[in-house]
C-alpha cells in the first residue's frame, strides 16, 4: 500500500514526483569531500512535505557525510531505484540543494520535532510490516549492545535548489526542471 500523499505546501511538482519521494526506500545521496571529490551513498530519505525538505540520518559512528556537509553544503539526492516502492514506471528524480546538519544527537525517536517524528514513524511502520524479524533482532540484548551506536544519529536536512525529473525513468527524454526559490 502506498503512503497517503501529504499535500505539498512548498514545491510545485507533479504528484508522480511526490509519490517517488514518499515511496522509494532509498535514494543516492552525494556529498562533496574535503578535496572537492563527490562521494555517493545509498540512504533512506524522509520527505518533509510541509517544509518541502528532505531529512536523512547518519550515525555518529559513520559521520563522514555530516562532516562533508558541514564543510560544503552542496548535495544531491537521486531517486533511481524503485525496488519495493510499488510504483509503476515512476520518474527518475534528481534533487540538488544545500544541506545542514544538526549538532544535536537524535537517539531513536527522541530529540526531533513532532511533525518529523510522525513522518518517521510512518516510514518505520511501513518498514516493520516488511521486516518482522527486525523486531526480534532489536529486542536482543547483544544486538542492542553491538548496534546502539547506529541509532545515535545526526539529522541532515536538505533544502532543494533544483529538481529534475525524467518521466518513466526515460533518459531519452529531456528532463523537466523545477527551480526552487523558496523553502521554509
Amino acid at each position, binding site marked *: 500500500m502506498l503512503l497517503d500523499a501529504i499535500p505539498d505546501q512548498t514545491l510545485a511538482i507533479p504528484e508522480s514526483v511526490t509519490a517517488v519521494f514518499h515511496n522509494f526506500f532509498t535514494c543516492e545521496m*552525494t*556529498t562533496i569531500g574535503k578535496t572537492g571529490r563527490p*562521494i555517493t551513498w545509498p540512504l533512506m530519505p524522509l520527505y518533509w512535505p510541509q517544509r518541502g525538505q528532505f531529512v536523512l540520518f547518519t550515525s555518529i559512528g*559513520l559521520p563522514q557525510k555530516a562532516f562533508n556537509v558541514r564543510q560544503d553544503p552542496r*548535495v*544531491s539526492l537521486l531517486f*533511481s531505484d524503485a525496488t519495493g516502492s510499488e510504483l509503476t514506471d515512476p520518474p527518475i528524480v534528481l534533487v540538488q540543494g544545500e544541506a545542514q546538519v544538526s549538532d544535536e544527537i537524535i537517539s531513536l525517536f527522541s530529540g526531533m520535532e513532532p511533525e518529523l517524528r510522525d513522518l518517521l*514513524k510512518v516510514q518505520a511502520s511501513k*518498514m*516493520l510490516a516488511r521486516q518482522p524479524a527486525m523486531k526480534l533482532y532489536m529486542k536482543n540484548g547483544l544486538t542492542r549492545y553491538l548496534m546502539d551506536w547506529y541509532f545515535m544519529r545526526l539529522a541532515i536536512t536538505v533544502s532543494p535548489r533544483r529538481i529534475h525529473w525524467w518521466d518513466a525513468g526515460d533518459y531519452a527524454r529531456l528532463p523537466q526542471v523545477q527551480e526552487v526559490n523558496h523553502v521554509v
Partner: protein
Amino acid sequence: MWSDILNHSAAYESAVLTALDAGSYPFSLRCRPQWDNTAQTLRLNLPAGIVLEPGPACLLWHRHDARLWNLHSFAVRGTLARDETGWYVQPEQFIPGVGVGGWRSYVRFLVNGRRTTRRYLAQRNLARPKLDWDEFGQTNTTSSPGFGIGPVRQGGTG
C-alpha cells in the same frame, strides 16, 4: 582494484554516476558502465542534454530487495574524462560497502562504528546517549528509522 570492480559490478545492470555540474553541485544519473579491460576504465554512454564537468567523479553500485533486505553496495572514486570515443571514468579507489567482504567486513563495521562513536562523543565532551528501547518497541517501529545504509566505510575517503 580493477578485479574488485569486475567481480562486484558483474551482477549489476546499472550504476549511479556522480560528477559536478557547471555550478559545482553534484549531479547524479543512472548509467551502464562498460568495462574497458585494456585501459582499465569504465566507459559511459551519457544521455544527450546532460552536461557534466570532467574531473572528480564517483560510481555507486547498490541494491536491496523489496523488503529493504539483502543489501549490497560498493563505490568507486575516480576521474571523469572524455576522449574521441566518449566519456569514461578512470577508477582510483574501490570503496567496499554493505555485503562486500563477508563476516569480517561486518565485524569491522561494528568495531569501527563503536570506536568512531566513542571518539565523536569524547571530542565534544558529550555523554553517551541513552536509547529508549521500550519506546521503540511500543511504537512498533523496530526497523531502521532513517537507517543509513551507505557503504561500510573502510579507509579515509569522503
